[in-house]
């Protein structure tokens, strides 16, 4: 493979240092204190990375276990995606000052920090592309999202380990990263393969001591990816069958899933592509100024579909149906592909252990039998 370079494991500290020297704060996977899982948080250096840890995920379960290796990236994914670093869960949009009866509106200007995210997975990069389409490519650009997106440096790492909840192979988004990265790593037993996908990435690579990757190293990396693909046990129905969900809007299976669903919105909170947010005013008690904010919202919340004194989707059945049909069917009309990239977080973090993939498969097989 063209431009593939190798550096030994000790070089990882140099890479992080090189990124920092370029003015970035570095975000990476680290064990979240008290939570027992991995999350993208600011890291000081290589010592904060989850060395020798693997994740075990299943419906409503996430555990980290020592794996006896020296590897930093022998896990599938983190509890939340990289979404919060671009589409923040809470954002001030503008402020209004009231003076002598007049209103003075002031736009909020977010000053984004240069941010490098280390250890990004294929599923999350694919989801970032979906969010780019939503927030940047319409007639109106979200200036807050764009400010952060432009300051982002993405250091991806190909997966070598699939969790039981992973299904990116079936959505076509992984386990190998295909594009959207600045730098891309493969972790081997004694070091890393590295290549760049942008000028920004190439600039950082010049600071790093690397050697040409050997054919054996490259084939080892490919074999890891293959193994990761083979180990995925879950699969969404093929894309061509997914529009069939829209023919199943009155299926009794929605009632069945609604009996288990708590409508808590965890799935939408951890989903790397979900974009819903609500706007609200936060007035100061002095009556002189008010701030207009937005918070991440969920189609599972009661007032998401509030409409002149009523709620369109009053029941959990209708909300679960909205979540699934939007993600797997109507998203295609909006952005040319489904809104699911196979990260499996909605399965892991559902407190009721509802398996999104299984539900979609059940709905579609019921349709075909009907």
């Amino acid at each position, binding site marked *: 493979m063209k431009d593939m370079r190798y550096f030994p494991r000790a070089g990882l500290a140099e890479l992080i240092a090189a990124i920092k020297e370029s003015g970035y704060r570095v975000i990476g996977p680290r064990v979240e204190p008290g939570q027992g899982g991995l999350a993208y948080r600011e890291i000081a250096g290589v010592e904060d990375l989850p060395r020798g840890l693997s994740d075990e995920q299943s419906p409503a379960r996430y555990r980290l276990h020592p794996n006896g290796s020296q590897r930093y990236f022998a896990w599938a994914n983190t509890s939340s995606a990289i979404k919060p670093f671009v589409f923040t869960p809470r954002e001030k949009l*503008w402020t209004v000052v009231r003076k002598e*009866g007049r209103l003075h509106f002031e736009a909020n200007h977010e000053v984004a920090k240069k941010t490098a995210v280390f250890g990004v997975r294929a599923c999350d990069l694919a989801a970032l592309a979906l969010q780019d389409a939503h927030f940047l490519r319409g007639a109106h650009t979200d200036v807050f999202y764009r400010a952060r997106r432009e300051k982002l440096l993405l250091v991806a790492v190909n997966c070598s380990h699939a969790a039981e909840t992973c299904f990116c192979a079936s959505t076509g988004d992984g386990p190998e990263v295909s594009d959207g990265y600045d730098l891309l790593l493969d972790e081997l037993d004694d070091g890393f393969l590295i290549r760049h996908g942008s000028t920004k990435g190439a600039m950082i690579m010049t600071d790093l001591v690397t050697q040409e990757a050997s054919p054996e190293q490259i084939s080892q990396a490919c074999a890891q990816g293959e193994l990761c693909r083979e180990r995925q046990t879950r699969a969404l129905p093929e894309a061509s069958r997914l529009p069939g969900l829209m023919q199943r809007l009155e299926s009794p299976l929605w009632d069945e899933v609604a009996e288990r669903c708590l409508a808590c919105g965890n799935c939408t909170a951890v989903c790397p592509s979900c*974009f*819903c947010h609500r706007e609200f005013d936060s007035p100061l008690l002095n009556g002189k100024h008010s701030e207009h904010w*937005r918070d991440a919202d969920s189609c599972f919340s009661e007032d998401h579909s509030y409409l002149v004194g009523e709620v369109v989707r009053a029941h959990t059945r209708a909300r679960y149906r909205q979540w699934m049909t939007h993600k797997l069917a109507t998203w295609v009309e909006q952005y040319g592909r489904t809104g699911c990239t196979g990260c499996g977080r909605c399965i892991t973090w559902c407190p009721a252990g509802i398996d999104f993939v299984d539900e979609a498969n059940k709905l579609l097989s019921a349709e075909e039998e009907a």
Partner: protein
Amino acid sequence: MMKTHNCYVPHEAEIIERVQETPDIFTWHLRFSDAEIAQHYRFRHGQFNMLYLYGVGEVAISVMSGDGENLWHTVRAVGRVTKAMMDLPVGSRIGVRGPFGSYWPLDIARGKDVVFVTAGLGCAPVMSSIRYVVEHRQDYGRLVIMQSVRHRHESLWEPQYEAWRALPNTQVLLTASRDQTRWPNWELGRVSVLLEKADYNKEECVVMMCGPDAMMRDTAMTLKGLGVTAANIYVSLERNMQCAVGHCGHCQLGGKFVCKDGPVFPWPEVEALMCVKEY
């Protein structure tokens, strides 16, 4: 709007005049404070603005008529924001952002019969369109205006409807669904009663409709049964709108963002999902 612009920020506007139309419906006459914004503001018939009340929030309200110098909005006090808005006296300042969304097909309707079917406050989003057709009477065929209310005393702009009734080649049909008394020039019953009496060319017409979801669904079915092509029926939908630019996700109806792909849709684009309960 420029790509670098923060599209969420309103502009200040002043309430120049207010009319209490009914106990819970009022009309505002607004003007942007900034002369340049007022001058450049243009809306297309059927589009909406986001109106902001200090410290409370925004609501999506269709433009009833006017331009940036003289902007008219008719609002029903029904939620948190609109109830508080009803108390604002003339001279108060609010925020206005817009215009947003799609608009009525007045170009497509040219040369054809034009049929407006509205219920309740659904009459407000078509007001400017009716006026446009009246002003360009020679460009359009027959004009049929149907409006349904629960009680006649809740009806808006009756003198306006009576004036239209006098125009050539124009039919105005009004009905009150819950009145006991049958008033002159009024029918008793729902919109369906009017559909039977409306006289227009079913094959060469454009229907523009606005009202509650159920009313639009039933009316579209009836119209199709009468021989109106579904593609010639247009509806204006109401959904939860917060950002108005297709970002916040609340107004989605299947793959449509009602705020930017709508609120005006050709009926076939929304028919399937409008017929699914709670979708």
